[in-house]
């Protein structure tokens, strides 16, 4: 059964090709079935793989499917091969499961778009590349998927390329990601030159070779650089908020649920390397914690619904990095899975709001939408509650796991995570109360609001169920997902076993659980007070904070800073090269050589007098001279 894993890739690949080449002829009706259908088939294959793995004993849950030898050059050899184990199957389930629901939603959301078929061709392409990324059995194939999802992201952010802002956002995402991608490319080259293989199993088994060669720190830091680009962490997160220019299903699928988690996946996959590089792992945790807090503060001050969710995604990705950084790889993947549900849900619900309000996203123009959009409201509320970590919803369990492991590593990381959890609860419920409660602020918008079609609301409901239930695979001490994933991360050595023994007593865990639950509830209560009961509070807080409030509202001026320090100097340099070096230097040299040749020709043409007698005389003299030379010689 596991040998048929390649079917997972085949279906979206066929979908991409068919829709790309025959999309216009097929018509919307066929595409509406075909595009989600291919993803559903992939999901079915993923489920069968999962079931097969469950039936195997834990130590046999590792299967590699070699499709063919991809390339060989000297001693360099890479197979096109898939790795089926607990981690990759979990990721494949999330990608295809959430991906399928978002495809269904897109059928409703994109219904009136003139480039309907192109949209679904891109979406299927994305699923194909994301599955390549998570199913690869070597770093090079992972890199193919890594770049492929980047391309899909670029194409879909700039899908409405008539809007200059969308085209710019696509470019920004692509270029910022390149900064990270070169890190991954370098890391792969380092691994190849040291270990001599790119296959995960070989690399992890020989991880001590990397240590002996002294490059383990470099490799892991380069991987971290790649992950900060793809997963929108400090300092390369700037592309993700702008990526909201794309259609909302794209934001949900690529920029919340799946692609941006690729960095977390890669770090977790490389657990054997990060375990041996404690400094790099500490950097991962530090960057994660800093990003989580930083993005949460920005999310508090945003007024655009999708941007609130974008910064929230960055913040939650920070949590995942915190988890994988402190060695809690399973918790990171667990949070990845629950986050995929509730964040996809929140984005899709935001898309439903957008659909109802003709593209309006400013929450200060909404109000009392729960009267008009009941399904959207309830599903959004569930998603926001899960995001805020309200007890017994999925976000609560996964976030608490992370905080618990952070506490074991360092109480500072835990404290940062806890503050972030409080802020998360506040902004999550702010984004519920301001648009959905209170009085309508814009009567015209409110009047025209209408609930979305079933193609959009049904996926919302399914995701809402997932957002509630997904957490129960990871209840503390019963954690199914941890037991399921743990063998993947500690296949290399028994180092983790020793660490487990040092865990603090269990009561600490329950206390921490209670604290984080209280913080989440307190945040929610504060949001209720500030945005429903006494709406003057936000203004008071803003005034009392002074310059800091302005700093946060302007996103810490990071975009402006990057423009000043990196973008503008680079542009000036490019202009200098184009104007001075290219025009004056290179063009000048080429034109100069042409000028010299022209001048020489001008001089030489005077020999052509047009007098045949003169030519004949020249021939004569030439002949005489030749003969004379031959004779005298």
């Amino acid at each position: 059964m596991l040998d048929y894993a390649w079917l997972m890739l085949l279906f979206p690949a066929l979908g991409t090709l068919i829709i790309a080449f025959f999309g216009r002829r097929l018509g919307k009706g066929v595409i509406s079935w075909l595009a989600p259908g291919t993803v559903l088939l992939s999901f079915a294959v993923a489920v069968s793989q999962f079931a097969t793995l469950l039936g195997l004993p834990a130590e046999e849950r590792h299967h590699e499917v070699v499709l063919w030898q991809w390339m060989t050059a000297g001693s360099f050899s890479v197979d096109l091969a898939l790795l089926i184990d607990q981690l990759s199957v979990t990721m494949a389930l999330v990608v295809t499961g959430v991906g399928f629901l978002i495809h269904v939603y897109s059928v409703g959301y994109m219904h009136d778009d003139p480039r309907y078929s192109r949209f679904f061709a891109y979406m299927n392409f994305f699923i194909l590349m994301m599955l390549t990324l998570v199913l690869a059995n070597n770093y090079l194939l992972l890199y193919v998927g890594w770049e492929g999802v980047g391309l899909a992201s670029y194409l879909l952010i700039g899908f409405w390329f008539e809007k200059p802002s969308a085209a710019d956002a696509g470019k920004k995402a692509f270029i910022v990601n390149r900064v990270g991608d070169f890190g991954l490319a370098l890391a792969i080259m380092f691994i190849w030159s040291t270990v001599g293989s790119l296959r995960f199993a070989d690399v992890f088994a020989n991880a001590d070779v990397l240590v002996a060669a002294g490059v383990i720190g470099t490799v892991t830091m380069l991987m971290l650089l790649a992950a900060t680009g793809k997963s929108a962490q400090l300092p390369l997160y700037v592309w993700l908020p702008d990526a909201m220019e794309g259609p909302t299903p794209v934001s949900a699928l690529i920029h919340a649920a799946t692609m941006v988690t690729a960095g977390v996946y890669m770090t977790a996959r490389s657990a054997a390397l990060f375990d041996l590089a404690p400094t790099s792992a500490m950097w991962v945790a530090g960057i994660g914690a800093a990003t989580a807090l930083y993005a949460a503060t920005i999310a508090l001050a945003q007024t655009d619904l999708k941007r609130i969710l974008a910064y929230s995604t960055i913040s939650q990705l920070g949590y995942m990095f915190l988890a994988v950084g402190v060695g809690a790889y399973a918790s990171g993947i667990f949070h990845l899975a629950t986050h995929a549900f509730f964040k996809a849900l929140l984005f899709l619900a935001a898309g439903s709001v957008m659909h109802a309000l003709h593209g309006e996203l400013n929450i200060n123009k909404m109000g009392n939408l729960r009267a008009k959009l009941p399904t959207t409201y309830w599903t959004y509320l569930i998603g926001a509650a899960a995001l805020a970590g309200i007890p017994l919803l999925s976000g609560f369990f996964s976030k608490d796991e992370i905080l618990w492991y952070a506490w074991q590593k360092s109480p500072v990381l835990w404290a940062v995570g806890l503050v972030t959890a409080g802020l998360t609860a506040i902004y999550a419920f702010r984004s519920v109360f301001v648009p959905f409660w209170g009085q309508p602020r814009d009567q015209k918008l409110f009047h025209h609001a209408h609930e979305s079609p079933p193609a959009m609301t049904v996926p919302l409901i399914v995701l809402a169920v997932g957002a509630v239930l997904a957490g129960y695979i990871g209840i503390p001490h019963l954690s199914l997902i941890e037991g399921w994933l743990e063998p993947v991360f500690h296949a290399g050595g028994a180092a983790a076993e020793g660490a487990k023994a040092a865990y603090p007593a269990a009561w600490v865990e329950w206390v921490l659980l209670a604290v984080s639950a209280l913080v989440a509830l307190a945040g929610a209560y504060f949001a209720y007070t500030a945005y429903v009961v006494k709406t003057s509070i936000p203004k008071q807080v803003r005034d009392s904070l002074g310059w800091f409030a302005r700093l946060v509202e302007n996103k810490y001026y990071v975009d402006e800073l990057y423009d000043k320090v990196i973008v503008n100097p680079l542009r000036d340099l490019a202009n200098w090269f184009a104007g001075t070096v290219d025009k004056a230097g290179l063009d000048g040299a080429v034109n100069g050589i042409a000028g010299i040749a022209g001048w020489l020709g001008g001089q030489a043409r005077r020999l052509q007098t047009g007098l045949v007698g003169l030519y004949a005389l020249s021939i004569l003299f030439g002949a005489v001279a030749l003969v004379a030379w031959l004779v005298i010689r």
Partner: protein
Amino acid sequence: MVPISYYLILSAILFTVGVVGVLIRRNVLIIFMSVEMMLNAVNLTFAALALHFLSLNGQIFVLMAMVVAAAEVAVGLAIVMTVVRHKDTTNIEDVNLLKG
């Protein structure tokens, strides 16, 4: 038996006359005839030396030179005809289209 030097001197005189004709005359047809004279001066040399060395090589070269000369006349006269039709002149000085 005429000494070989007589033939060579005659052919040298004929060749020089041809060269001078090519250089100083302006009429294309006269220049042509001068060229033919140069060719035949050389032919004479070949024939004389063939007799002198009792070898057939020179005679074969004569035949080849005559073939080339015939071909050259055919092409050359065709060019002259065309020039005359276009410019209505046989004066070589008036034909200078490719002057630099």
